[in-house]
């Protein structure tokens, strides 16, 4: 009740008649609550804060089955395509991608009317080797025009941008096959390029495109894909939740299990719309960073990197000690709105 009309109170200074009363109440409460345990049990026990309130996070699970994908699976789900050899000896990889409207439960109780590639956010992780011929059979099963725009080398008519021919705007019910050689090697991405671009990306039309060097990368024990994204559930062109691989807090609620000494490689892509930057910070560890994955020599040994939209890079590290370790955006606001995860390092 702000409106005191005749009684417009001074909001500053003065002796608060009740101030001291309030303060004593506060202190007394302190004592009486000192031994209380919070009733709530967080899924991740390592993150209990004891008597200091709950940590940010979601309670309960989204319906992965209904969503049609589980972020835990997306980590290691690489689509190498259907492989055959062309008459000239070149390897041909064929992929099928369909654009679909799909309601995805992004936090328990909230469904986001997403636009997806193959019904998932992010879309499939396409993987090829430098020099392979790749064909992406794209069909549009949604009620909006969409395209696939790849980062990498390709002719103009394969760019997936309006004005570049039939591949530049695929009408609902239509289809198009994007075909080009996979190059240069590195970590790339693809996304829809229909205008308004921000909305088409924010709704979920993006995915990872990995081109391995001909000679391959040094072997590691575990390769993971992480696509950093945001979700604007109320369409005010500002993100309400942040995530890796679609579902906020997924890896906080379901820590990624690795082992001490295991070599881990992360393909990290930032597709975050509306916000200028995103970041990745690894706890209690450092990683070698390969920006865009276009070199086999790391550029940096660090524990935090920053990426703007469509920037990406490869991280390599291993843990010395067992335990629970956080990884999250060191834009901490994003972390508390969903972009937070845990590695569970087993001995």
């Amino acid at each position, binding site marked *: *009740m702000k409106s005191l009309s005749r009684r417009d109170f001074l909001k500053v200074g003065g002796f608060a008649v009740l101030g001291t009363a309030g303060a004593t109440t*506060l202190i007394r409460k302190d004592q009486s*609550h000192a031994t209380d345990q919070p009733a709530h049990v967080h899924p991740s026990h390592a993150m209990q804060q004891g008597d200091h309130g709950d940590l940010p996070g979601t309670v309960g699970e989204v319906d992965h089955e209904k969503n049609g994908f589980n972020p835990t699976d997306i980590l290691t789900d690489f689509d190498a395509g259907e492989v055959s050899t062309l008459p000239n000896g070149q390897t041909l990889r064929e992929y099928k991608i369909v654009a679909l409207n799909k309601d995805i439960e992004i936090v328990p109780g909230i469904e986001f009317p997403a636009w997806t590639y193959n019904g998932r956010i992010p879309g499939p992780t396409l993987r090829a080797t430098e020099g392979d011929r790749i064909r992406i059979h794209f069909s549009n099963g949604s009620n909006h025009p969409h395209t696939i725009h790849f980062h990498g080398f390709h002719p103009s008519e394969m760019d997936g941008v309006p004005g570049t021919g039939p591949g530049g705007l695929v009408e609902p019910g239509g289809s198009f096959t994007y075909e080009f050689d996979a190059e240069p090697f590195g970590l790339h991405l693809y996304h829809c390029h229909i205008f308004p671009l921000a909305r088409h990306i924010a709704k979920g039309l993006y995915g990872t495109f990995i081109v391995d060097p001909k000679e391959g990368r040094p072997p590691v024990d575990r390769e993971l894909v992480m696509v950093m994204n945001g979700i604007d559930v109320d369409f005010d062109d500002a993100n309400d939740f942040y995530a890796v691989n679609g579902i906020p807090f997924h890896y906080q609620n379901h820590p990624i299990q690795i082992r001490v000494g295991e070599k881990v490689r992360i393909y990290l892509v930032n597709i975050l719309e509306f916000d200028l930057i995103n970041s990745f910070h690894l706890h209690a560890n450092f990683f070698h960073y390969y920006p865009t994955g276009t070199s086999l020599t790391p550029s940096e040994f660090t524990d935090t990197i920053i990426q703007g939209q469509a920037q990406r890079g490869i991280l390599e590290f291993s843990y010395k000690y067992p335990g629970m370790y956080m990884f999250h955006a060191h834009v901490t606001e994003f972390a508390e709105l969903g972009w937070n995860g845990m590695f569970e390092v087993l001995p």
Partner: protein
Amino acid sequence: MTQTASQPATRRFTFQTFILLLVPILLLVGVIILFLSTGGGLDLAAPVPVENLTVERYHLERNSIELHVQNTGPEELTIASVIINEAVMPFTVSPSATIPRLGRANIHVNYAWSYGEAYGITIFTGNAIPFAVDIPVAFETPQPSPRTFWSFTLIGLYVGVIPIFLGIFWFPALRQLGRRTMTFLMAATAGLLIFLGIDTLVEALEVAAKVPSAFQGVGLIGIGAVATFLLLDAISRRQTEITGSETERRLAVAMMIAIGIGFHNLGEGLAIGAAYNVGEIALGTFLVVGFIIQNITEGLGIIAPVLRDRPSLSRLALMGLIGGAPAIVGAWIGGYTPSPFLAVLFLAIGTGAIFEVVYEIAKLIQKDTARQSMPMSVFSGVLTGMLLLWITGLLIK
């Protein structure tokens, strides 16, 4: 001609009358059923879900934020996510996260808030519609304890009871005055009350904006004010019929002034208690002094009609309590369970009561001026009363 003959027959309430009365209602039921089953040819499906959530109040305890919400939208809704200062927080809702239309629920978050800081909360429903709550200054919500109870009592005493009694202490002095001055004082009282009445009405309208739209706050003001006005008018007429004595009548008017001011002070107490509760005010010593100075005039108003009579001391004390003590009750209610709905109702009652009392005083003044015309005394009196409150109001603005 035939009408007069047939009238007694039609006036009797027969079974036939009953059936005839029932016909439109039965037809209405038919129309509603038809409409519900066919939609009446209109496309009534909303393109987007229409939801409304009113946060009635919040309750802060150590490591705990509790939001008392009401679903004031047309359909049931589900609380799906709570974000506090840009952090998604685990929460529980009792009795259920799904709230029926006009149903209430408490959202509980274990949150380590800090004293004196500000918090912005966004509640998302299952349809991803956000509702914002602001906590401008966080501090422990006063609990009903002997200590806070006494504090709210003190506020009520300072704002209501003490100033009114101080005003009443003018009684012996004012008794010495002549008839013309007494009429002037009566007119001044009317002026005071008109000012208070406008003030109460405006306050009611402001609070009404916070009442969930389904409860039609402004309509509530109309009902409360008109009903109170007419009820007090009826009581005063009946009293005149019973006693008829002028002295008794003046005493009755004084009592009604006390009641009207009492309602005003109840509304004031509610507002102060509620504002204190959400940390919007600091009751400075200067402010309390301002209250006392302004509200002295209210005590003056109560005694003005009975200056030429000899009311007993206990009667005067009773009137002082009726006028002032509701400020204490208001501070308790406002402090512990602030409710815009109740506040609007009390303020509306206060508005009706105050304007009715102005009407009663006008009748008394008319009787005086019928004997001896003194138009300037009335004019200057009313103006003095209004100016008095306006000027003392400067102290606490």
